[in-house]
């Protein structure tokens, strides 16, 4: 029994205990304790800095041995996974679970789904060869389907849509693995690694499209981004936080294995895209950049806070891939670090939104407002979260985004840099919409009596916010993990310090930056209060409306159709592009099916079956 075995066993035990005791009141607290134990066990594996830790479990399928081991990359992702499970279970453990039960849902099913998600992800992260990777991949897909579907209703429908995507992605990956197997007769990482070195560019392209495409589906990379937002947003509260924080990153984990560990950035740069001047790396970087921009601007349009955040989840995945594709020390560290910073940010944001849903019963941005007076702590959590999401100091998200930007500028990719900045602009606009429509402006009459979120939900939210601020203030410890991951992937490690990174071409020290920021606020406060500054709170009806007298029953805060002017400018452009893309895809499928249908039905079927069989035989024997 190795330390990894302990971890996986406790994770499986969590699942079993949730199956047994999920119905009881203590289920939530039990789950929190068990995730805590898993976290400690993960810390003890030592996979981050030392040698990879193997599991004693090995299974053979068709003479193919499967085994599991943890290296720094697995450790990094597993740490976020268990952490997310811990905070989400904590959020669910108290009154949330009771309310969920009262609404006629089963908390047991929820806890089981969450535990299953954590377990399957831990299995996937430990995969030691392509076969165990594929099996882990399918397990994760089904586990997330379970978590999405437990809520029923719209969540169930969204989950079914997800299933279609996950199936096609899985099939593409399987096809790719079969191609590899026919070439090498093995799916071991070492053999695959040498295989990629020997293969011609055309074959690598095929594998990239099949396997990479399959992984990209899960990540929501363009053009496979349409399923994710609905599926994640409709999932019940903490489940949504978990999916948004880490599940969406499983695709990225697999892509890192494929693109960075197996093919390698150098090879990607050398591969030309036929008929263009782009290399494969540029192509992927541009796909990532478009994944940043387009979903972010779709988020801008959303009128449901959950959907708004879920769309951002897709967009932020683009930053991570973008940073990795730059491939230098700072860029890839930025991409990897963003997995962590964004994970804690998204979990906190969704928890805050679901706390508002818990109290008011709606996440509709047109039906809220002014809640800062009633839920100030939730407001604070959301504020910390959006500052981090928008990538502004002093929060954690700033550090990782800054690293991505800096590497793009330093490596001479100005257009990608502009694309990333355009994405950030969209983020800033939409998070402003989020906080304004929920917390600022006029408090509605029906929300007069709303109270602060219950303590059991508030504590994990505040814990995550503190983490967001602390990681922003002192990114050093977290960057040391990232540096270890980089070393294990064969990338140059980032030169980190306690406050940021050290670089002769321009480093970052958050301790100084935050200090100066706070000093700025301090000077401002000194001037204001030193000069006897007086402030006065006014009634919310004492507001300017073109000189009009306001009454409580008149809505003067128009959050409906927010950013109408901007939408007027950019709306038709991307909406048109999207319709075009979707139509083109459906038209292609319709055309192919019509052709096959025609051949099959009306021409001589036997002849075509024969011809296809001969062609297939010729292909396989060639």
């Amino acid at each position, binding site marked *: 029994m190795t330390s990894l075995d302990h971890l996986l066993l406790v994770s499986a035990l969590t699942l079993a205990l949730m199956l047994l005791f999920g119905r009881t009141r203590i289920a939530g607290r039990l789950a929190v304790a068990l995730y805590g134990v898993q976290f400690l066990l993960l810390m003890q594996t030592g996979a981050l800095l030392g040698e990879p830790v193997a599991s004693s479990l090995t299974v053979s399928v068709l003479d193919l041995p499967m085994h599991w081991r943890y290296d720094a990359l697995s450790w990094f992702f597993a740490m976020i996974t268990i952490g997310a499970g811990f905070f989400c279970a904590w959020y669910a453990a108290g009154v949330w679970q009771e309310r969920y039960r009262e609404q006629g849902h089963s908390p047991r099913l929820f806890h089981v789904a969450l535990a299953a998600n954590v377990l399957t992800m831990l299995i996937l992260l430990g995969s030691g060869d392509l076969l165990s990777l594929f099996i882990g991949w399918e397990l994760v897909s089904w586990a997330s389907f379970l978590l999405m579907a437990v809520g029923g209703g719209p969540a169930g429908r969204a989950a079914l849509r997800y299933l279609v995507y996950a199936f096609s992605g899985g099939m593409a990956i399987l096809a790719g693995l079969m191609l590899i197997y026919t070439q090498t007769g093995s799916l071991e990482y070492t053999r695959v690694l040498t295989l990629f070195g020997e293969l011609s560019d055309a074959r690598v392209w095929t594998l990239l499209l099949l396997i990479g495409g399959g992984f990209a589906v899960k990540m929501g990379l363009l053009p496979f981004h349409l399923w994710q937002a609905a599926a994640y947003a409709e999932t019940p509260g903490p489940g949504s936080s978990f999916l948004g924080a880490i599940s969406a990153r499983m695709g990225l984990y697999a892509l890192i294995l494929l693109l960075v560990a197996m093919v390698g950035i150098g090879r990607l740069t050398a591969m030309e895209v036929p008929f263009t001047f782009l290399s494969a790396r540029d192509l992927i970087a541009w796909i990532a950049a478009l994944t940043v921009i387009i979903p972010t601007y779709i988020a801008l349009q959303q009128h449901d806070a959950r959907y708004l955040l879920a769309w951002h989840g897709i967009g932020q995945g683009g930053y991570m891939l973008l940073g990795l594709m730059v491939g230098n020390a700072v860029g890839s560290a930025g991409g990897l670090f963003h997995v962590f910073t964004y994970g804690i940010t998204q979990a906190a944001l969704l928890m805050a939104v679901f706390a508002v849903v818990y109290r008011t019963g709606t996440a509709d941005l047109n039906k809220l407002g002014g809640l800062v007076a009633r839920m100030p702590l939730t407001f604070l959590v959301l504020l910390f979260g959006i500052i981090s999401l928008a990538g502004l100091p002093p929060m954690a998200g700033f550090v990782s985004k800054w690293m991505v930007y800096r590497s793009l500028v330093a490596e001479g990719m100005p257009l990608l840099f502009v694309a990333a900045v355009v994405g950030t602009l969209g983020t800033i606009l939409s998070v402003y919409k989020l906080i304004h429509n929920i917390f600022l402006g006029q408090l509605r009459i029906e929300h007069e009596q709303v109270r602060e979120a219950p*303590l059991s939900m508030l504590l994990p939210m505040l814990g995550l916010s503190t983490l967001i601020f602390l990681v922003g203030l002192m990114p050093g410890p977290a960057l040391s993990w990232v540096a270890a991951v980089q070393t294990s992937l064969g990338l140059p490690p980032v030169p980190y310090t306690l406050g940021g990174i050290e670089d002769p071409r321009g480093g970052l020290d958050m301790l100084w930056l935050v200090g100066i920021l706070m000093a700025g606020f301090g000077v401002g406060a000194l001037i204001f209060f030193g000069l006897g500054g007086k402030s006065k709170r006014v009634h919310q009806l004492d507001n300017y409306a073109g000189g009009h*007298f306001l009454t409580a029953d008149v809505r003067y805060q128009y959050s409906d159709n927010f950013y109408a002017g901007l939408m007027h400018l950019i709306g038709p452009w991307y909406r048109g592009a999207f319709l075009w893309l979707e139509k083109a895809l459906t038209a292609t499928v319709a055309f192919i099916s019509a052709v096959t249908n025609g051949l099959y039905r009306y021409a001589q079927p036997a002849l075509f079956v024969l011809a296809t069989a001969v062609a297939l035989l010729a292909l396989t024997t060639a």
Partner: protein
Amino acid sequence: MTELIKTPRAGETLPVTAGKRTNPLANVFDELVRFAQSRSLFMLHYCTGCGAIELPPAMTSRFDMERLGIQPMVSPRQADILLVTGYVSVKTLKRVILTYEQMGSPKYVIGICSCTVNGGMYWQSYATAKKLNDYMPVDIYIAGCMPRPEAVIAGLRELMENIRQGKADSWKDYYRHYDHYLGHQQRLFGETWQTPTDVISEARHYGLFGPDTLGTHTALLEQHQKPLEALEMKVDIPELTARR
């Protein structure tokens, strides 16, 4: 500073109240603050009557009042000057007063057009307020039917000069003699007239409470005034408050 009821006339010397400090350094500081104030004026043009038409040329490239540091502002909370540009009907006057009370101190009122001075050609109209000065303290009147942009700019420069010299503090008058202004307002709008702003408590807040702040009219106001409490931010965590 405008005296009550009495409208300031051209050539009249106004009493100087500011700048009486003994510490010379404090004087220098006051001068500096007043200079800065006079050079950064944001105006809310509440365009009530025909005189408003002279503002676009005054603001745009031909006469360009921005070169003097005067810019338009969209909300009263951030504005320094309230421009009332012409006759004010009874209905409009309510809005003008509401807007004036929402402005932060120090604030200045400019009445443009003869109509704001004495009702102008609407003297006989039943629906028009005659003298703006009855309802709020006016710093500068710019007479004419209508005054040309040059006159508007001359008036604004006069105001700037007054601010620099510390003479333009009629806004304090509104707090010190609130009862007087409220009386005129009640005469026009009826006894139940009320704005959301609690001027009396504001007068206390700014230390401008005077013997004439309260009177018969404010007593009338307090009889029917519905108090508007500011929305308190409260941290009300159920578990913690229940245990207490």
